[in-house]
């Protein structure tokens, strides 16, 4: 048995190219963990969720189709989606009004990301008492956690600042994550493709024989028991906030415990021959495609059904020189009507869309049960800011891709009444994964029209 870990000096450019084609359905079944096998039959594929975040808003006039309903037009930013237009909806009018100041002053970037999947106005703090809400991906993840190896994955294409503050008195935790496991615990996303790959397909004990592997597993089990016991004992001597901190550790350890039953060897076999870059590619498109490839693989091998990905952190100042943009994204987003800056922003927005389109095409071309992965998924793409120039959180740019296993009719531009809570969409979303919920954030009811049956 070969372990990828031993493949040190590899050409990062060849990594994962065309991988989707090498993993066919039978393999997928073989790789599913024992407890999940029943739910991944060829006929009833599970519904997967994806959340893709772009920071700093978009140039709205170049995003919003002028026509509504079927056969809508694709403005400049959406043009790259031509090949998957029938597999998605553009949803206009949805807002995250809890990202507004509401008396808290500046900090719209931090709030935009903290509210995007939670619908909850975050507590303004540089550290003490960090609080938002549980995000939709995490509600779903918890519900599905028994079905897969990982309840969810959180990914990013940008790493956070290493010093200083991020936005106007908000801890960086708010702008560096969109996923909140509890209202006090944001999930920091992983930015290294290699780390993601190792998590999904790594096999620490790949070179050991069966007896030794079993022994390692049993040791690990004992160590986890020890940690659980020790941590619980310690908790009894601490105050409430400290206990909550240790709860985070307990939760993580219990998940690891659960994962022991996953047979790493088989996943490694499937990934055999893959090549992994040591560090994140410098070229943005290459980086994005790599992460999206991994996301597709994670779905395909049913290691998780919930993935969130930040195309960049909120307030990102990345310079997209790949498309000739020299200034930092955030710096440009306050364009004050300067046409040159607007053109730059349009290029960035479209560039992001090209990567997203790559992802959707890949999902569409990956077999899954009786259809494609995209058929069985709902991927929500968007930003917590609409117009970056004035930090508006109203009428956000939102795309809904995939059919969620026939539960969503696609190919339309749906215009909702202005300032319909985006949280309403999340009620639908949770229903699609069998986790009906009555309220989330500022929701006031489910969204109409998504099924295509109600007009």
């Amino acid at each position: 048995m070969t372990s990828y870990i031993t493949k040190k000096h590899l050409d990062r450019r060849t990594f994962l190219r065309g991988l989707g084609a090498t993993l066919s359905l039978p393999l997928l079944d073989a790789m599913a963990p024992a407890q999940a096998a029943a739910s991944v039959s060829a006929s009833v594929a599970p519904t997967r969720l994806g959340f893709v975040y772009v920071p700093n808003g978009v140039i709205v006039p170049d995003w919003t189709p002028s026509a509504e309903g079927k056969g809508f037009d694709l403005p400049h930013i959406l043009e790259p989606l031509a090949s998957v237009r029938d597999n998605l909806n553009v949803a206009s009018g949805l807002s995250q009004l809890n990202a507004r100041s509401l008396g808290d002053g500046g900090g719209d970037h931090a709030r935009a990301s903290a509210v995007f999947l939670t619908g909850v106005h975050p507590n303004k703090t540089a550290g003490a008492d960090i609080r938002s809400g549980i995000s939709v991906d995490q509600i779903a993840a918890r519900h599905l956690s028994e079905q897969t190896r990982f309840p969810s994955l959180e990914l990013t294409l940008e790493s956070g600042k290493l010093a200083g503050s991020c936005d106007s008195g908000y801890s960086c935790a708010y702008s560096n994550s969109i996923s909140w496991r509890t209202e006090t615990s944001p999930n920091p996303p992983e930015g290294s493709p290699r780390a993601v790959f190792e998590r999904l397909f790594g096999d620490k004990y790949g070179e050991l024989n069966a007896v030794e592997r079993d022994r390692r597993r049993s040791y690990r089990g004992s160590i986890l028991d020890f940690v659980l016991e020790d941590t619980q004992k310690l908790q009894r001597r601490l105050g409430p906030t400290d206990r909550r901190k240790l709860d985070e550790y307990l939760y993580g350890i219990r998940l690891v415990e659960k994962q022991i039953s996953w047979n790493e060897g088989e996943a490694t076999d499937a990934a055999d021959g893959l090549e992994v870059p040591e560090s994140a590619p410098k070229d943005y498109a290459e980086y994005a495609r790599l992460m999206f490839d991994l996301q597709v693989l994670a779905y395909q091998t049913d290691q998780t059904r919930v993935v969130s990905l930040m195309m960049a952190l909120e307030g990102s100042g990345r310079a997209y020189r790949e498309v000739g943009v020299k200034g930092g994204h955030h710096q440009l987003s306050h364009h004050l009507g300067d046409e040159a800056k607007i053109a730059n922003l349009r290029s960035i927005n479209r560039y992001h869309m090209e990567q997203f389109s790559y992802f959707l095409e890949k999902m569409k071309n990956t077999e899954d049960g009786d259809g494609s992965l995209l058929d069985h998924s709902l991927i929500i793409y968007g930003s917590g800011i609409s117009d970056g120039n004035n930090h508006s959180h109203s009428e956000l740019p939102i795309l809904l891709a995939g059919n969620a296993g026939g539960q969503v009719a696609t190919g339309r531009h749906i215009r909702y009444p202005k300032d319909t809570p985006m949280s309403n969409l999340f009620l639908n979303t949770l229903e699609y994964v069998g986790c009906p919920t009555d309220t989330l954030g500022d929701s006031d009811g489910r969204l109409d029209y998504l099924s295509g049956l109600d007009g």
Partner: protein
Amino acid sequence: MSRLQPCGLAGVESGMTEPGFDGNLDIMQTLGLSWYRGVMNDEDTDRRKPVRDLILRTIWASSPRQAAGRVFLAALIGGCQSVPHGGDADMEMAAAPDSTAMAGFLETHCYACHGAKRQKGGLDFETLIMNDGHLVDQELIGRILAVVTSGEMPPKRRTQPEVEEVQAFLLDLNAQKEALLAGIKPDPGRVTVRRLNRAEYNNTVRDLLGVDTGPADGLPPDDSGYGFDNNGDVLTLSPLLAEKYIEIAEDVAKAAVARELEDYDRSLDVHRNILVCDHSALVHNATCADRAIRHLAPQAYRRPISREEFNQLKHFYQLAIDHGESFDAGMTLVIQAMLVSPHFLFRVEDIPSPNDTETHHYLEDYHYASRLSYFLWSSMPDETLLSTVRSGSLRNPRTLRDQIERMLRDPRAAALAENFAGQWLEFRNLQRSDPDPELFPEFNDELREAMAGETSRFFTAIVAEDRSVLDFVNADFTFVNEPLAKLYGIDGIVGPEFQRVSVDPAFRGGLLGQASILTVTSYPTRTSPVLRGLWVLENLLASPTPPPPPDVPALDAVEIDPGATMREKLTKHRENVSCASCHDRIDPLGFGLENYDAIGKWRGEDNGRPVDSSGVLPDGSEFSGPDGLKGVLLERKDDFVRCLAEKMLIYALGRGLEDYDEPALNEIVSEVARNDYRFSALVYEIVRSLPFTKLRGEAESS
């Protein structure tokens, strides 16, 4: 709960240093007398002195807490008989300071916009003011003091109050603030249990097991709070991190044992932690395992271990033996378990009554030693430090001083430059800096490293030589290697090694002339006077600015010629009153650094025009260039020291500061000034401060 703004409540302006006033600086600082210049900024120079005298007299009378503190201090140091007596009568005055002027001023000048009818900025003084005419929110008072002092409020377009009216108002407000401060009960606060961050994990396993491969580098980044990534509240432990802890513990344990086996095989006579016996490493030997565990575990947990804890760990050794494995495998498993115990991963500071908020406990000596070592080394205490705990002498002032001095000279203190200074000064962000390669072709990874190297070495020199912290502003030396010397135009430096060089203060010297800082405060394509000005305000001066208004709608309305220079654009921008209130303070400081381009290279011209590096401060005073800016900072040296002390206290504690920390902060600042601003005095005062030495519990439900 109101909290201290980042970097301070008070800002003392310059100009208060004439004979007879020097000794009162700390008091004036406490009172937030930064308005002195703001009020008297015009041609009224002849009126300054009488007004100032009046103010100072009034302050003396209305600052009983400080006066009392000074009497206490005077008693301690046995001198300074001129300190006024703070008696009971004063205390009563503090409880109910006169507030007529304050109430009248608010009504006349503020209610129209911040009253029952309108609540601009969400502020309604009419409702907030008490029946007896008092305001009771310390943070609010601080904000009002700041805006009225700077002349920002009342807005220029409204009727302006008379100078005397402003003075009376501010005195009332100061008295009010003092009364509130006097009412603050001493409170050490509490620190949320901190897990080791990446740097601390790496350093700890290096010092514990000799594994210096940086095993934590692959962990997800640590988020930061209050500017630092060692904040207990912000250091979350995600499922991913828990998973990785389990994994790297196995790797570290294996590496540690392998390393000692190698030494053993080569018969190297080095100190061994794991293979403590002289038997073959492969042979099971329970006595040796016991010895190794008793040696290692107290270091890993940073305190003595209980019998039960010993048994728990021993169990893992036995488990391996029961599976037919050898001594080294058994110890590997023990270490693996140790490294994932919450007692290793978290810095536990438990107290007898975790839910009691009233009782203040001294930290246990072992916890105190850990605070000290993680503060100065980002690592575990060493044997020398622990021995002072065992002998019970650590809290003896002389021992404490000796330990601090020893630790600051130790190579491990490089962590303070790396982790404290790297975040305080933000030069850690160099790793993310991305100057445009066409505009700045000389920028590469070598230069990037050289920039960080300069500031690191500079900081370390001040620490190791125990220099004045004011050298951060105006040192006449720095460190360069060849790539950096080239950037700076310094001749004769060859190779990658750094050399200490003297510099011309007009061009370099002090933090403000260092490329690291100038680069992280720039955009990829150009400098940003705004970012640089903010950096100076937030990181060097006790002067935070409020964040920009939430919706910035006004910006759309501002028509700015795209061809204008940055200075012209910013001038236009400041014509908007709501922008001007802050940018009048921010922009000029940044302009002073315009002679440095976006990677810190000196320039005389920008886009073919000569660089204008002059700035006009809100009080009307002018300066020019980096040297002039340094002068401005040195005039405000107490602001600088307060800012540094506040940042360092946040870092040392691993939490943000609260109102009740202000007395401790004041004391640190005045003691540092008393000790010629020496760096070690700053560390010593922090280490012996109330919040660093004591703890309390937290109520069960909020």
